[in-house]
């Protein structure tokens, strides 16, 4: 899991950097808490939706407010224009002072007239271009009229624009300016209405604030709802996980609490049904296993007692075979040999059935594997000598201690050596022991006929024989390697075979140094190094 994460983020250095920047506890909580993930995701999604909706809403409201203001402003401006036009029409003279006076009065009157568009100021211009004379309450007002607007009005078009206006007394702000040319034969006149937008701005600010506050409230509310809902859903899931863990740890009676009739109750019910069914099956299997063990034990006793009598009788006969006629003497020998084989077969069958019944128990204790190998070699030496094989133990290296069941490991090594001798064609059988901090290995190598491709896996099958036509020279039961494999597995170890036709075979037993530890490697290679006859001779034990 950790490894996988590492690999994935390895491909995304940026993401990895960011992940590493976040505190480990937050990352772990994010990974492990569904509730938190649901809540945060809900809040983020809801936040995006609220922002989009808020922006659209605010834009609409703003446009609408401005539109209303504009309509009113234009109406008032047209109204004022008609008044100014009538006033100027009354002034016939070319006298400048007269015009000036009329304009001042008109501006004042216009400014005093109320209208639907609220508070406003009026500015007028006389003349063209830069020489135009402004007529206004304040000079700053006239200066606030943007040149583009004036250019359009001087072109003879009524027009409007938003601009920042200095209303004097430091009161400067956004305003809607509506300008129109006053038709007159005397001179060029321009009339501008300035409507400050401060009220609208205030309203907008208020609306913005409201939208923002309700947005935040909504996000928090949805987050809270998300958290609550997730909690409602997650709690039974966590319950289920806890119950599953307890079931897995062997407390088969544990069940989930069922409340109500909703989906979660269905989950709990189904879970409990599953647990009950598992419990039943496990009970049945246990029962079966007990029966099998019982049967094995009974068969063992029932078969062994008569076999003991037969065995002793055969031995008594065998001891005095020299007094018998040749045919009876030979029969006695055959009887003796076959009783031995029968006994070996019975023992192996019982051992295998003990494994099949799950009744095999590991009794691990600190074991010196090198001494163990020496012991087995001493015990199997005579068997090897009868076949003309020599047992060569590679010496050197430190003592190899492992937590192992010495009886089982001895049996494995004995089986491997007897197997190697049996297939070794009278050539030396090499045995090596090695260990490191985590694992210990024993290899048994022969130089016999070897294994054909695919046979390395088959050698551990029950009653499998490399070559059916070969004589059963040492009277092996055909179960030795199967039992050895089970013995190795019981230790959490490996038993593997390598072989090449004509180059012999090698078997490797790998055991963890500490009982129960998981194996990751073996201190010895499975396939042997190229043969160096001189070296092996020198390593003779």
């Amino acid at each position, binding site marked *: 899991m950790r490894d996988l994460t590492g690999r994935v983020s390895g491909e995304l250095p940026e993401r990895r950097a960011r992940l590493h920047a976040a505190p480990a506890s937050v990352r772990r909580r994010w990974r492990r808490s569904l509730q938190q993930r649901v809540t945060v995701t809900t809040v983020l999604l809801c936040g995006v939706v609220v922002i989009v909706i808020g922006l659209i809403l605010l834009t609409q409201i703003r446009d609408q407010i401005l539109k209303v203001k504009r309509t009113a402003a234009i109406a008032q401006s047209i109204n004022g224009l008609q008044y100014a036009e009538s006033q100027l029409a009354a002034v016939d003279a070319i006298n400048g002072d007269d015009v000036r006076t009329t304009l001042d009065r008109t501006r004042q009157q216009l400014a005093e007239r109320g209208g639907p568009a609220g508070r406003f100021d009026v500015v007028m211009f006389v003349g063209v271009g830069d020489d135009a004379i402004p007529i206004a309450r304040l000079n700053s007002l006239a200066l606030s009229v943007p040149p583009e607007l004036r250019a359009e009005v001087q072109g003879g078009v009524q027009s409007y624009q938003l601009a920042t206006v200095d209303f004097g007394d430091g009161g400067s702000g956004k305003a809607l300016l509506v300008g129109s040319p006053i038709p007159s034969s005397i001179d060029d006149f321009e009339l501008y209405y300035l409507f400050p937008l401060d009220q609208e701005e205030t309203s907008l600010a208020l609306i913005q604030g409201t939208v923002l506050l309700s947005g935040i409230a909504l996000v928090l509310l949805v987050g809270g709802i998300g958290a609550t809902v997730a909690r409602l859903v997650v709690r039974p899931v966590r319950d289920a996980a806890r119950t599953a863990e307890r079931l897995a740890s062997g407390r088969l009676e544990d069940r989930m609490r069922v409340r109500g009739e909703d989906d979660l109750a269905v989950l709990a019910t189904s879970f409990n049904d599953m647990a009950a069914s598992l419990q039943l099956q496990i009970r049945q299997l246990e029962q079966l296993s007990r029966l099998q063990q019982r049967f094995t034990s009974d068969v063992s006793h029932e078969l062994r007692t008569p076999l*003991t*009598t037969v065995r002793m009788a055969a031995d008594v006969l065998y001891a005095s075979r020299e007094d018998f006629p040749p045919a009876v003497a030979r029969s006695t020998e055959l009887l003796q040999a076959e009783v031995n084989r029968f006994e070996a077969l019975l023992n192996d069958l019982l051992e295998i059935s003990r494994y099949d019944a799950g009744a095999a128990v590991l009794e691990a204790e600190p074991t010196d594997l090198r001494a163990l190998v020496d012991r087995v070699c001493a015990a199997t030496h005579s068997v090897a000598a009868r076949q003309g094989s020599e047992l060569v133990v590679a010496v050197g290296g430190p003592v190899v*201690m492992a937590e192992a069941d010495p009886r089982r490991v001895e049996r494995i090594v004995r089986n491997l050596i007897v197997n190697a001798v049996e297939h070794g064609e009278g050539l030396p059988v090499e045995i090596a022991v090695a260990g490191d901090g985590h694992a210990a290995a024993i290899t048994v190598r022969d130089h016999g006929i070897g294994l054909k491709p695919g046979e390395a896996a088959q050698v551990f099958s029950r009653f499998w024989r490399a070559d059916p036509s070969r004589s059963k020279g040492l009277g092996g039961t055909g179960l030795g390697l199967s039992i050895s494999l089970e013995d190795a597995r019981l230790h959490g170890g490996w038993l593997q075979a390598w072989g090449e036709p004509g180059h012999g075979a090698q078997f490797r037993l790998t055991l963890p140094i500490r009982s129960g530890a998981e194996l990751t490697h073996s201190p010895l290679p499975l396939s042997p190094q190229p043969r160096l006859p001189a070296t092996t001779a020198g390593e003779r034990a």
Partner: protein
Amino acid sequence: MKGRVLVVDDDPALAEMLGIVLRGEGFEPSFVADGLRAVTAFRDVRPDLVLLDLMLPGANGIDVCRTIRAESLVPIVMLTAKSDTIDIVLGLESGADDYVVKPFKPKELIARVRAQLRRGESEQAENLSIGDLDIDVLGHQVTRDGEPIALTPLEFDLLVALGRKPQQVFTREALLEQVWGYRHAADTRLVNVHVQRLRSKVELDPENPTVVLTVRGVGYRAGSQ
């Protein structure tokens, strides 16, 4: 040599065969076929050794073993059809000195019987001490502060073997050879169980032994004096 052997076995064929083999080796066998009468027969015969089948009708072989051990230190060799650890350990813990797993060779059985009967023969006068124990080898006596402690011949031999070489750490295999007479290492559970039994008799606190010490990963040695 002492030669009375009580065979407790319910299988008539095996019992008869055991009789043939034992007589052939110069022993005097007597037989009892069920567990209930085994203890009575034991008191009547006063054998030098008991061959006890663990699976008996009437009474459990383990119970018979316990009863005999409670009233006598005579060597007991179990005949068992089970090689499962739990059965063997149970048998040894209930007082048996050694065991033979069926099917066994006659020679193997005779060797076991002889090894048990040979105990206590031809000992030299010798006094040993382990921890706060005093051992009179010839007199087969173990005492703590003058108080005698009753040990079976096997337990006595085990203690003597450790006490004779107090500096040496004995592997289980070495003890098997020296005390039980196994040439090739057989079953080290024998040693484990008997060391426990010995400790339960000679140690003041069997949880923290001072007489028979465990050397982890190797074996046992005698406690310092």
